């Protein structure tokens, strides 16, 4: 009952924090929106809140934040957010602070994650389609001239023909910008569609609207491809046991995350390799120590089961095998574990990961529920 109350409370608080960002600047189809939840769990775009394993006796709370979150936090409600090569370090550095409540004692954990390779960040890529952009403008200019000439030849005065062809041009650009809201001048649109057939840049069977939508689609496809690029991080970490008190874990970890399937039409399929080397607490001893010398390796596959209409992941499953070796003398080695994590997006940035572990030592299956929320500017 107590666990259920804690879970509901944590969900409520996290939901409030998630909903509080609805007034922030909104951008659709941004690349960060296309990140899988597993990617967010490795490197936060801005701020990430985690209530971990809230149903177990080893629950904990974690705050992850990118250093960039503090640099531009005052500008979150405006469009201004300068991220350049000069502050790339801030974007690629994450600090994690956590508290874990274990059965007998409590741990405070501090981690710093450096992204050694991060080719996914939306703020760092450059997309340019200069030739096609110029060709769109050339077609519009030529259609304006053709329309004007037709009107003058039809007996209209030069002044009126100029006004009408200019109005046709403005209507056409408004139509291209938002085809659902605006309608083109049909005569102008016919000239534009005739002109595009002479273009060497676009396929001649396309109308101008179709060519423009194709350019937008090219951008969206590029955005999806960016999200399938590699992420490699390095994370030194330390845990301080405030019950003893004393340090009970020091180590370094590294994560490599990459998509195995580069076809953007398919749901992302990601390979996640995580390695850790650390000195840890031998819990069989009653005094503070770091006698365990452990190398841990986790190899997993994460699959996005479902994406919403915008192409954003909202349901993921990851299957992983965990291996561990302890160099501490006189201890029995742990046998490999199997781990299934199901992440479901409840609403907005509010996720419920369910972690199901097969513990080969205890010969049992255990389930843990967490609650996460990603606070970000560009959603």
């Amino acid at each position: 009952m107590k666990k259920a109350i804690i879970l509901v409370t944590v969900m409520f608080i996290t939901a409030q924090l998630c909903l509080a960002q609805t007034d922030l600047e909104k951008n659709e189809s941004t690349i960060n929106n296309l990140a899988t939840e597993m990617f967010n769990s490795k490197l936060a775009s801005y701020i990430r809140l985690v209530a971990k394993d809230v149903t177990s006796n080893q629950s904990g709370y974690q705050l992850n934040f990118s250093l960039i979150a503090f640099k531009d936090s005052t500008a979150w409600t405006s469009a201004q957010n300068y991220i350049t090569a000069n502050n790339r370090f801030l974007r690629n550095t994450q600090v994690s602070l956590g508290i874990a409540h274990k059965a007998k004692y409590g741990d405070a954990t501090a981690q710093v994650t450096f992204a050694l390779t991060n080719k996914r960040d939306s703020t760092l890529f450059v997309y340019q389609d200069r030739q096609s952009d110029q060709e769109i403008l050339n077609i519009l200019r030529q259609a304006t001239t053709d329309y004007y000439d037709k009107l003058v030849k039809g007996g209209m005065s030069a002044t009126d023909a100029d006004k009408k062809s200019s109005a046709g041009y403005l209507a056409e650009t408004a139509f291209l910008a938002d085809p659902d809201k605006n309608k083109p001048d049909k005569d102008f649109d016919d000239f534009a569609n005739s002109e595009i057939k002479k273009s060497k840049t676009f396929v001649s069977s396309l109308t101008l609207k179709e060519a423009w939508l194709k350019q937008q689609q090219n951008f969206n496809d590029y955005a999806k491809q960016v999200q399938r690029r590699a992420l490699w991080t390095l994370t030194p970490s330390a845990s301080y046991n405030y019950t003893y008190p004393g340090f009970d874990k020091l180590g370094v970890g590294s994560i490599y995350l990459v998509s195995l399937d580069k076809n953007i039409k398919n749901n992302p399929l990601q390979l996640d390799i995580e390695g850790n080397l650390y000195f840890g607490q031998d819990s069989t001893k009653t005094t503070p120590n770091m006698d365990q010398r452990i190398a841990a390796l986790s190899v997993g596959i994460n699959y996005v089961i479902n994406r919403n209409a915008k192409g954003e992941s909202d349901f993921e499953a990851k299957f992983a095998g965990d291996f561990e070796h302890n160099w501490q003398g006189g201890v029995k080695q742990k046998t490999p574990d199997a781990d299934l994590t199901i992440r479901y997006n409840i609403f907005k940035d509010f996720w419920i990961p369910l972690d199901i572990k097969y513990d080969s030592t205890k010969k049992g299956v255990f389930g843990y529920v967490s609650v996460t929320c990603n606070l970000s500017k560009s959603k």
Partner: protein
Amino acid sequence: MNPVTITAGILLGAGDATVNVFSHTVNYSHYFSAVSPGPWVLALAPGNYLVGIVGTCPPGGSVTINIAGIVSSVPAMPLPPFKTAGKFIQGVSITV
């Protein structure tokens, strides 16, 4: 001839904008990006011109366009920032 100044503000550094200014007798083009931010100064004879603006808004950023040194424009200057990530297009009519 009147000096007309066109400026583009590209936030985040990964966006761009191609701007054309044309009439029946002239056609000028300029490319704005983080490495070629302008401003672009044109000497135009008094009269009416059309302006075409096409570019890419970087994710999480924005592109702003302003045309100064003109009598009037439709729509009015400065244009509202392009904020939605992806391609954008805007037609403008100016009187110099």
